């Protein structure tokens, strides 16, 4: 096949008052396809941004013997897919923002294919549409994605703004509409998609709620009907063609008129499109009839082109592409920088620089003259900038090079000129030239490329399975691996795993080898693809490469590899994930198998036990039983016993606990539990006999209560039965009696036998209850070590001093001294000080 030839033609038209836009037509490709009848009798759809082209030949044929053929081509006409159409009658073809083909059928069903002809899914535009059939349909792009608008046989509009999240909207009725409207278009305004409808000379805007009549300002009165309309790529501008042959151009909100031009042709056109560069000052639209193309702008004069062949117009951000049976051309306003440089006899700095460089190449001194001229006006940096910019707008690599060389030459004479623009332009152009190549066929302009971003370009290459080129571009542009190479490799791997002819081992190996060094590969996604294409074994192999356990688990569960899922979840340390698997297994497996699986995974088991503790006490018991964990079973019974109101039930549960504790060989727990049972019985008995509330008290509190109500014998009985240590019992009795201020009983108790806690507590407890008199009774009984403390407690300074001196203990003497007051205990202090001195000497 022949590589694309490219030639530029320029047409300049000038009138007296207005300067019309200069237009240029660039041949992008000579089409590689071989169409017998050209584009005649074909449904054609070409995606913007140099996207693919789809053709449906003979779409109106209904006989099964001659099915229509659906063909998909690249922009250069290379075949991507071709297959006979077996579904219903197609009314419209269109492309989504992610290069998917939409085929809208007569019954309102929309079929979605990928760009290589693979069927993806289908959706319906609703019952109303399928009943009244599709009359006309338009596919549009909005900030929300790709949308579909349908005019039904009942003359009502139905709209879906985003086919990936379908919400059907039925628009209000258009008043007075008898047949199909003369023309209509979809607008995006105020973050809403609206339909603009022309019925004769009447114009309406339909939104969700209302149908509003509108009038374009300054529309010439000769017109009795609007026959065609088109909205600009940015939805900002609107062009209307009337039956009188006038083209009205204005803003799409219909507030402002930009211009109106008479085409002098009254037959309805085949197509009309905006052809306006972003930021351009002037409007321009293209109208196409059979064999004729007219560009209208601000001036009265129009530019006319003859077309040899049936063609279609593809509106772009910065121009219009014209596709015919043999050629593919781009018609656009000449970019500012290019015009400045290439205009005949231009004196713009860029033009001079280009000239200077040419002379320099010829080794002529004129180079210096030109340079001097630019430098004298201090326009050299402007000249360089112009050359770089112009290079970006040129399609011919030779021209690009010439301009860039001139720019580079100019840069030599500038200090501190920022290199970024030049460098990034060189890089961009290299990428653009690569994708514009005939074999790839994505004829992007630099403006379009900047608008669509590298990310999207990479995606588009990936959809076309041009993985090596995508990777080369990522590497060349130094795109972060995460967004660049790794992403492409992932797509490649997803595609690779669907190749049926290769064995699991070969594919797994190929994938792992290619992806080994790439950072941030999500193997789980690749594995999911493998699983979806029915290759479970391959999916498991691939999952092994996934470093994020969290991502492995859901797929493993889906593939019913639950033991593996469980161990992966545990490996991740994410307990929530473990719970997810455990809960899944609980529903999936029978109880025995479930328990067995948990048994082998202690982490999962203990988490499940936590869960059961709060939600399923009975299951917990089964688990402990399975493990013969008698200790825990005992604890469980103890806990349960506290939930019982009835004493008998409570004791019964405690008995079960005792049995378990014995089985666990935990004698201490068993014995104390038995004690508790004994105590409970005792408490209840006494409650019944004496009417004191006792059940649930600790042994200590029970005895205290008994003593406080004078049931000394019963308290003594508990003391003996439960072998309460003497010390504690003495403390308890001492405090209880003092509390009751039963001093007589206390004295008796004190004398009953030698106190195991000594007599200092007696002194202190009496003092605490403000009975100095009683306290003094016990001072004499206190051990020598505690004498000083005891005397001090009852406030007997003399006694304390006496005891301290006797014991010749320095620190005790000091303690007493610190408690003496200088005024009253003067003599005592002297004695103490003397004693202290001797004690120190010793």
């Amino acid at each position: 096949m022949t590589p694309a030839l490219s030639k530029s033609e320029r047409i300049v038209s000038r009138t007296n008052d207005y300067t019309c836009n200069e237009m240029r037509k660039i041949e992008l490709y000579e089409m590689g396809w071989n169409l017998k009848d050209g584009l005649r009798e074909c449904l054609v759809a070409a995606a913007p941004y140099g996207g693919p082209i789809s053709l449906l030949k003979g779409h109106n044929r209904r006989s099964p013997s001659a099915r229509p053929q659906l063909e998909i081509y690249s922009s250069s006409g290379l075949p991507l897919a071709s297959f006979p159409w077996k579904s219903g009658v197609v009314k419209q073809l269109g492309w989504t923002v992610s290069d998917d083909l939409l085929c809208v059928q007569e019954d309102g069903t929309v079929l979605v294919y990928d760009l290589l002809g693979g069927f993806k899914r289908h959706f319906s535009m609703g019952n109303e549409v399928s009943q009244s059939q599709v009359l006309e349909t338009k596919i549009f792009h909005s900030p929300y994605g790709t949308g579909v608008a349908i005019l039904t046989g009942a003359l009502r509009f139905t709209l879906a703004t985003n086919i990936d999240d379908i919400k059907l909207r039925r628009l209000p009725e258009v008043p007075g509409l008898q047949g199909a409207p003369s023309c209509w278009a979809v607008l995006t305004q105020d973050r809403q998609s609206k339909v603009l409808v022309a019925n004769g000379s009447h114009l309406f805007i339909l939104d969700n709620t209302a149908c509003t009549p509108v009038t374009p300002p300054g529309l010439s009165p000769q017109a009795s009907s609007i026959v065609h309309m088109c909205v600009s790529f940015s939805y900002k501008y609107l062009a209307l063609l009337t039956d009188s042959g006038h083209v009205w151009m204005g803003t799409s909100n219909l507030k402002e008129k930009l211009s109106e031009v008479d085409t002098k042709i009254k037959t309805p056109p085949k197509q009309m499109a905006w052809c306006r560069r972003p930021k351009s000052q002037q409007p321009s639209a293209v109208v196409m009839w059979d064999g004729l193309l007219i560009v209208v702008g601000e001036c009265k004069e129009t530019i006319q082109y003859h077309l040899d062949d049936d063609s279609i117009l593809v509106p772009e951000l910065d121009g219009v592409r014209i596709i015919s049976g043999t050629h593919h051309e781009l018609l656009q306003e000449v970019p500012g920088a290019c015009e400045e440089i290439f205009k005949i006899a231009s004196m713009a700095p860029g033009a001079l620089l280009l000239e200077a460089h040419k002379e320099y190449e010829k080794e002529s001194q004129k180079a210096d003259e030109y340079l001097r001229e630019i430098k004298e006006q201090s326009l050299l940096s402007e000249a360089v900038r112009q050359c770089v910019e112009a290079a970006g707008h040129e399609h011919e690599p030779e021209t690009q090079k010439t301009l860039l060389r001139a720019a580079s030459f100019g840069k030599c004479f500038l200090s501190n000129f920022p290199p970024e623009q030049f460098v990034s332009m060189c890089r961009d152009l290299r990428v653009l030239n690569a994708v514009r190549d005939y074999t790839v066929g994505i004829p992007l302009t630099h403006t379009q490329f900047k608008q669509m971003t590298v990310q999207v370009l990479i995606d588009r290459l990936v959809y076309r399975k041009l993985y090596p080129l995508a990777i080369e571009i990522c590497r060349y542009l130094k795109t972060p691996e995460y967004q660049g190479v790794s992403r492409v490799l992932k797509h490649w791997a997803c595609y690779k795993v669907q190749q049926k002819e290769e064995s699991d081992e070969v594919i797994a190996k190929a994938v792992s080898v290619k992806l080994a060094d790439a950072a941030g590969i999500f193997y789980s996604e690749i594995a999911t693809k493998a699983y979806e294409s029915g290759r479970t074994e391959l999916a498991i192999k691939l999952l092994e490469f996934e470093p994020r356990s969290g991502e492995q688990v859901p797929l493993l569960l889906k593939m019913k590899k639950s033991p593996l899922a469980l161990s992966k979840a545990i490996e991740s340390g994410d307990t929530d994930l473990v719970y997810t698997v455990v809960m899944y297994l609980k529903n999936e497996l029978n109880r025995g198998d479930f328990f067995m699986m948990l048994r082998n995974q202690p982490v999962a088991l203990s988490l499940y036990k936590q869960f059961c503790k709060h939600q399923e006490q009975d299951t917990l018991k089964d688990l402990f039983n399975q493990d013969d964990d008698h200790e825990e079973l005992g604890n469980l019974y103890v806990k349960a016993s506290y939930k019982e109101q009835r004493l008998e039930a409570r004791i019964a549960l405690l008995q079960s606990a005792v049995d378990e504790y014995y089985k666990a060989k935990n004698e201490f727990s068993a014995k104390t539990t038995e004690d508790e049972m004994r105590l409970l019985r005792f408490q209840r008995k006494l409650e019944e006999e004496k009417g004191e509330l006792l059940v649930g008290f600790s042994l200590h509190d029970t005895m205290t209560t008994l003593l406080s109500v004078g049931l000394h014998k019963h308290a003594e009985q508990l003391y003996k039965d439960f072998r309460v240590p003497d010390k504690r019992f003495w403390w308890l009795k001492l405090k209880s009696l003092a509390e009751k201020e039963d001093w007589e009983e206390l004295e008796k108790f004190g004398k009953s036998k030698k106190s195991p806690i000594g007599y200092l507590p007696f002194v202190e407890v009496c003092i605490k209850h403000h009975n100095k008199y009683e306290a003094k009774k016990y001072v004499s009984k206190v051990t020598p070590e505690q004498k000083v403390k005891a005397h001090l407690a009852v406030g007997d300074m003399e006694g304390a001093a006496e005891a301290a001196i006797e014991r010749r203990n320095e620190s005790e003497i000091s303690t007493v001294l610190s408690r003496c007051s200088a005024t009253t205990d003067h003599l005592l202090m002297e004695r103490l000080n003397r004693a202290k001195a001797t004690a120190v000497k010793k």
Partner: protein
Amino acid sequence: ARTVREPGAFRHLTRRSSSRLKELRRITKRCSVRIECIVSLPEDKLQPRDFHILFVPRRSLLCEQRLKEKGVLNSFTNIDEYILDLIPYDGDLLSMESESSFRECYLENDQTSLYHAAKGLMTLQALYGTIPQIFGKGECARHVANMMLRMKREFAGSQTQILPVFDTLLLLDRNVDLLTPLATQLTYEGLIDEIFGITNGYVKLPPEKFAQKKQGEGGKELPTEPKKLQLNSAEELYAEIRDKNFNAVGAALSKKAKIISAAFEERHNAKTVGEIKQFVSQLPHMQAARSSLANHTSIAELIKDITTSEDFFDSLTVEQEFMTGVDTDKVSTYIEDCIAQKDPLIKILRLVCMQSVCNNGLKQKVLDYYKKEILQTYGYKHILTLKNLERVGLLKPQSTMRNNYPTIRKTLKLWMEDANEQNPNDISYVYSGYAPLSVRLTQVLARPGWRSIEEVLKMLPGPHFEERQQVPTGLHKKRQPGENRTILVFFLGGVTYAEIAALRFLSNMEDSGTEYIIAATKLINGTSWIKSLMDSPEENLP
């Protein structure tokens, strides 16, 4: 706002009147496996309600599953998560505030909080660079380090190019050092926490001491609301005294008082307009300092009332005896007396556990005696609490192995006879003699390194390890001579204020060459810690 009360998982599902998320008044603190009740609210026709869930610290599939089973998942307009792992508490302190972390890890074998800790550390590394060195001691530390290394692999390729701020991460299990939290903290901040309890950086104090003493205001009424004070290093005076031994606080406060009154006296010297202007400009600062001084003087008085009491002294004496290894192998008369007088149970448990830890387990007879005493006095219901304490190793019967605590104490110099409380020269000042084991391990790691204490490390539970993380070339820190190393110490299972004080002391020590940043699953003290391990079956009564 009407809230639906639910214990555990979602404490509150909150209504909001407008469509703004900020209206969410209270958010769930932690989600666990519990959803116990779901209350159905009557349909309010006039005021339709929106319900929202905000999971903290992380969304839980299990929780959503439960809500789905209960059939209410669809009633929520928004289900979202607020990832809250490490919360900054001060310039050098991060906490996860995960109350039950120690209990979950060591008692229930539920390592959820460790997963969150690892996630938190990953976030920290995303912000402050990869930490080149990881040291650790203990099972949980090992687990966290493993998860971190694993997550690091998962994020491969997306690393941020940040010069590492931290040189080393040290992960420490709380169960490596069970002793320290049991001891009564003796720093100013530690004592505030021991006595009044610091929650979320605030302390509530009895109001009496803070009553305005101004006369002529007529109001004799004493404030009844507890006084709430915020405690952090933003307050100049507090920053100065928080980590001092309490015995040195008095002197610091009176010194400060002199400085402040001297500053106020300055006004008499101010003669020119310029001087007066300068004085006035400093006034707000001086007044703030004065009110801060008044507050802390009151707090110090409150604390002093307690620390000078005989009870406090006796109990401290026993603690110190245990820590120095005196009579740890027999029943302590003091504990016996305390039980006999039915002192607060937690006090008893702290002491008994301490004795057990300092003796590397108690003789079966002694242990059973204590247990029986506790059950008879405080009630049988505490049997489960005692079992919990045994399971985490706070209480244990002596094994055949000999008691290794004295060796550990001697090698690590855990007891310093003449601790200088006023002008400390060693971390042991924070417990007036006892140097917290956890901080000693940290100190030794920095210099001369763990290799010197290999033997002791083997005696402590759990593995010790070192890991290195690859730092991209070009991000290797070139330390200037004299520049400090920064070590992040992460306490898994909680950290006490005294330990923090000890680490800050090490940071500030001259020629230490190391600066410490502290992170923990929770700020704890002996009381809150033991409380978290208690099980009260009666609470579950419907």
